[in-house]
């Protein structure tokens, strides 16, 4: 049996749009650091490999996800932090240094989930270009990822030399222009931010029709939605084939299934809670019930692990931390996390070689 990966995604008071009713605090609580710290702490207690923080420029979005990740990083140890970063209306140069800096302030626990902005509404907020088709948006996203990663490598490790004799603070031979020119933009480089602890923070991508090629080329983790384990398994096979076609080892890419959860110690209580909240069509496999129900899904190992998405907070997370996590350990589905591990290490991935030098 393989060990399974576990991630947690939180946004608002949970994925269910009526979840705020259950939360017992005003919506403004979402603007406070206390809310985000408490949520991240619970996620960390569940032993999850990372906390996914969704974001967009669309309506209903809240505070900037990279900002939230940075705000919790110094006070919530152990867990990886993976904010969503959209690539459509942003500057790749800024994105590169933001994620490298998240890696710095979290001691190597940063990741990012590149995503695209599809709507005319988001385009109007920027007023720079019209909305585009997904294929074009993902070509642009691929360019963004390519240049972001190149910028991460644009400072070699050890570029700071502090050589008093020659008066040199940096060895400029260890700084590299990226000289990227693509269909959508060009970036000269180098970055202004040194290479980060993980060198390449974890790249997480969602599978969708136009993102598969990008994921095959760049993803360390691919997130999928599927209604049942069989469909999830088929998706995993599809992704592994695409990764192999892109010339990479499929075993270096973990496929995680999104699972909506509403858990309570008493399974009936969980179902009652969902009834009270009202109908919400599932986007992916949903587990409503006791802790064992989620353990069973993970034990099936149709994929490499799951991203648990609580329909309500903090209830779903509390059960995950208190009830599910110990069961996973006991069943040998998870091993105790090394609190000092980087996020890449949690996924068994090495610190990558520098593209400019091979070391």
């Amino acid at each position, binding site marked *: 049996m393989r060990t399974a990966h576990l991630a947690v995604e939180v946004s608002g008071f949970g994925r269910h749009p009526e979840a705020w009713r259950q939360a017992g605090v005003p919506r403004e609580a979402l603007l406070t650091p206390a809310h985000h710290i408490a949520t991240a702490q619970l996620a960390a207690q569940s032993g999850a490999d990372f906390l996914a923080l969704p974001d967009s420029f669309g309506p209903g979005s809240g505070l900037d996800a990279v900002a939230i990740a940075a705000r919790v990083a110094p006070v919530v140890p152990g867990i990886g932090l993976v904010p969503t970063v959209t690539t459509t209306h942003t*500057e790749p140069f*800024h994105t590169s*240094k933001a994620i*490298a800096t998240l890696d710095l302030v979290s001691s190597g626990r940063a990741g990012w989930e590149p995503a695209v902005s599809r709507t005319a509404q988001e385009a109007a907020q920027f007023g720079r270009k019209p909305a585009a088709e997904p294929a074009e948006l993902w070509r642009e996203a691929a360019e963004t990822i390519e240049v972001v990663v190149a910028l991460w490598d644009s400072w070699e490790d050890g570029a700071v030399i502090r050589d008093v004799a020659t008066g040199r603070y*940096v060895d400029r031979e260890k700084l590299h222009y990226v000289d990227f020119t693509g269909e*959508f933009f060009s970036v000269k480089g180098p970055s*202004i931010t*040194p290479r980060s602890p993980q060198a390449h923070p974890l790249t997480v991508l969602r599978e969708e029709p136009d993102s598969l090629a990008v994921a095959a080329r760049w993803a360390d983790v691919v997130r999928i939605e599927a209604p049942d384990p069989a469909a999830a398994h088929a998706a995993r096979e599809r992704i592994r084939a695409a990764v192999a076609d892109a010339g990479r080892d499929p075993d270096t890419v973990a496929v995680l299934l999104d699972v909506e959860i509403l858990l309570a110690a008493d399974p009936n209580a969980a179902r009652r809670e969902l009834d009270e909240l009202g109908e919400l069509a599932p986007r992916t496999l949903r587990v409503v019930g006791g802790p064992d129900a989620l353990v069973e899904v993970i034990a099936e190992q149709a994929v490499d692990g799951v991203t648990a998405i609580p329909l309500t907070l903090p209830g779903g997370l509390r059960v995950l931390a208190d009830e599910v996590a110990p069961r996973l350990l006991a069943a040998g589905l998870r091993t105790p996390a090394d609190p000092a591990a980087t996020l890449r290490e949690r996924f068994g991935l090495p610190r990558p070689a520098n593209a400019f030098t091979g070391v």
Partner: protein
Amino acid sequence: MPKKQIHLAAHFPGVNNTTVWSDPESGSQTDFASFVAFAQNAERGLFDFLFLAEGLRLREHQGRIHDLDVVGRPDTFTVLNAIAAVTTHLGLGGTINTTFNEPWELAKQFASLDHLSGGRAAWNLVTSSDAFTGENFRRGGFLDPAQRYDRAQQMLDAARELWLADGRPVDHHSDQFDVVGTFPIPPTPQGHPVLIQSGDSDQGREFGAKTADAIFSRHGSVEAGQEFYRDLKGRMAKYGREQSEITILPATTFALGDTPEEAAENGHRIRTAQVSPQTAIAFLEQVWGRDLSAYDPDGPLPDIDPDPGAQITRGRVRHEKDPLAVAQRWRELAEAKGGLSIRELIIETTARQSFVGTPKEVARQMDDYVQADASDGFILVPHLTPGGLDEFVEKVVPELQDLGSYRTGYTGPTLRDHLGLREPA
């Protein structure tokens, strides 16, 4: 009338030759631990805010990356949000360029920082940028210098509309921006972040007088400071503003010692270390526009003239426009001071406002300076990272408090509280 109070901000080093990186006590300027130590000490010293400068491309000198100064900085928003986690009151000031950002994203980032820090965010709006820096951005270097402050103003107008919209749709159209939509983040604890300005041209000063809550200035001496202070605050009335609504903070360094002699010696040692032999030549080359690596830094100025057309440094704001005149001035100065060497001359000419003395003397000098309306306080630029403010906080701050010129505790949680500012209307 109560005594005029001194405001202090702490400049975390970015890219400069002020940081004496060759000193064994000099730590990393990019490790987060350095930011934590520096910020927590500034907060112990009851500073108004921590300040980060910005440069979006590595400087070049003679076509190659400049390698003599400290260089490398983490992303401003990300590091400020992380510092918010390890401090409780300290304001968090970030320099963010108006040319290479868009209002919607920037408004979201600053609103997030202000919410997540409980009202401690400040934005230093800078316009300096050119095609050289633009090569790192989608928009490139498209902006004509004459338009930079137009864009800055329109950027601020759009951002302010978003920050204060409170759920109402925004429909902003200007030369630079079309921003249409409903901003998803409610007004922040401070209404919106505190605004800092640091451009020094006529246009820059006008922009500051109209919009800024604080000015980061470079006018060091008492006379130059007073002149700037009068000029800047004099421009405010036509915008319907009270002079007290702007806090003027020049950059300053300091050197301390137990005796005046020891302080002077420390000051000299620091200045010498800041201008290494190689740095002295590089500064000279900037003015001369030529390769002067064959010259001895401990020898006299070159007898050849500067090449007035050449610009061999890129990515640095140029305050000197006429190299021939500068060379002339420098030659006269070197002569008048009894034949200064290149390095001695650069040490002399690149010196900025610095307070040198025992902690008591430094406190007195600073107080005199502020009471004389040469400024409202200072942005302190220490020569060591991260411990460069430790001695100041330990020894000078209590002296300032004894003089009745400095707070003994924070009076509120937000940066607006520290600066005595009202919420924006």
